[in-house]
């Protein structure tokens, strides 16, 4: 309870400071929080900007596709390298090296391969979301206590049963952490992709407003995205806490 009170106070203080600072500065460049709700209203109503709902849907669809592919690929590669020890020894260092490269450098080539449309955004979202999922699977496999596997084998469990009844639950909390990070990064990938060059999507609208110097509208959209991401991450953290409580 106390924590919530403190959080609310900190948030309020930040808003007050923000408002005060914005009022002292050039109103075209600096937008205070009080100007955000009317700006958001204008974003929804104006004909100067593309209709928001369509773009939001497109972005959500891109994120869903990117995340689904990132999870599928990450789980597949992670389990392949984690369970086939020789493959793991060969490719894991390569994976770590790739992960160390700042991913944005790949984006221009993704645009070249996949064009300006949604495909390049999805590809970038996949690229960003893939690594945390893969690495979490690899870390999770390493964390399964050997004794638990021995116990199950001594009771006649075959490799599939060991996988299902021992490894998956023992890896669950690590894996959920990776899935959550992967989601956050898939969102980043899609939005950054849209900001760097697109003809549709939320990132495109943000860029558009920015290009027309509609600063208040631009700021309103950014805050909207931030709120949506926070909500998503909050749901993710609740889910993670549940899994962790279950898996001990």
């Amino acid at each position: 309870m106390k924590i919530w009170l403190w959080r609310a106070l900190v948030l309020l203080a930040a808003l007050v400071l923000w408002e005060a600072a914005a009022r002292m500065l050039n109103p075209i460049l600096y937008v205070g929080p009080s100007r955000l709700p009317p700006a958001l209203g204008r974003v929804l109503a104006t004909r100067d900007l593309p209709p928001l709902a369509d773009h939001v849907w497109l972005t959500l669809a891109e994120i869903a596709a990117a995340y689904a592919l990132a999870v599928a690929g990450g789980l597949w590669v992670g389990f392949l390298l984690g369970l086939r020890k020789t493959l793991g020894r060969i490719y894991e260092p390569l994976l770590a090296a790739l992960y160390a490269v700042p991913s944005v450098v790949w984006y221009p080539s993704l645009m070249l391969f996949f064009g300006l449309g949604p495909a390049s955004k999805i590809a970038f979202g996949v690229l960003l979301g893939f690594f945390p999922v893969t690495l979490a699977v690899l870390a999770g496999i390493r964390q399964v206590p050997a004794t638990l596997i021995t116990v199950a084998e001594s009771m006649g469990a075959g490799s599939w049963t060991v996988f299902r009844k021992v490894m998956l639950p023992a890896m669950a909390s690590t894996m959920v952490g990776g899935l959550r990070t992967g989601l956050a990064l898939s969102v980043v990938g899609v939005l950054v992709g849209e900001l760097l060059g697109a003809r549709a999507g939320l990132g495109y609208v943000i860029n558009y407003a920015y290009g027309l110097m509609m600063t208040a509208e631009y700021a309103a959209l950014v805050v909207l995205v931030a709120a949506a991401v926070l909500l998503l991450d909050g749901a993710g953290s609740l889910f993670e806490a549940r899994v962790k409580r279950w898996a001990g």
Partner: protein
Amino acid sequence: MIAGAPIVVDGVSKRYETPSGPVAAVDGVSLTVRPGEFISLLGPSGCGKSTVLGMVGGLVRPDVGRILIDGDPISGPNPKKVALVFQDPGLFPWRTALDNVGFGLELSGVTATRRREIALGLLEPMGLKGFEAKYPRELSGGMRQRVAIARALALDTPILLMDEPFGALDEQTRLLMGEWLVEIRRRTARTIVFVTHSLYEAIALSDRIAVMTARPGRIKDVLDVPLPYPRALDAPEAVDLHAKLWAQLREESLRAMDGQR
């Protein structure tokens, strides 16, 4: 009532490959365990006693030799005949005590109702009544090991293999667990092979004690413990036996220490 099954260990050897070359863990061990007998494998650390137990449990394949259970050579884990308990209880943290005990039964397709019945029947006499819905993290070390033993007993096998099951517990708990194991054994006549490095534990619990040499492990001597339960460890026979065992074990422990240097 289970009668217990005989075990014949026939000239088994095992080498392990290590970065510094192959190491012979067990070298030509032969041992016959009678049905219903409680036998301890006593030896210095690293002498291969756990390897012998692992081979009887079908978890480790001998390089040479064979092991017969009830006359049949073993080729892998055999949960119908052999159950194992390890030093680490190895409980599944996401399962309650009850579901941990039911794990082996679940693998062999026993229904949930029946699993519950069996698990409750095992947990109650172990002083774990009221703890069946607790998770391992909510239990003490001794309780966890009792749940692990209940999980092994749930398989209802004629043979129980225990690899230093009380090794991680404090001394008082260890003594109580020993008394309690004697009691279990009185109720169900299983064959028990018990690996330990504790002289007292071996004397307090076993019908026979097989002393192993330092690595590579061989059987040095097999001694009878002709004492009635419950055993007083300060009885003259127990003291004599302790002296005799220690004389043999001291020599091997010294060799094991030299080997480590």
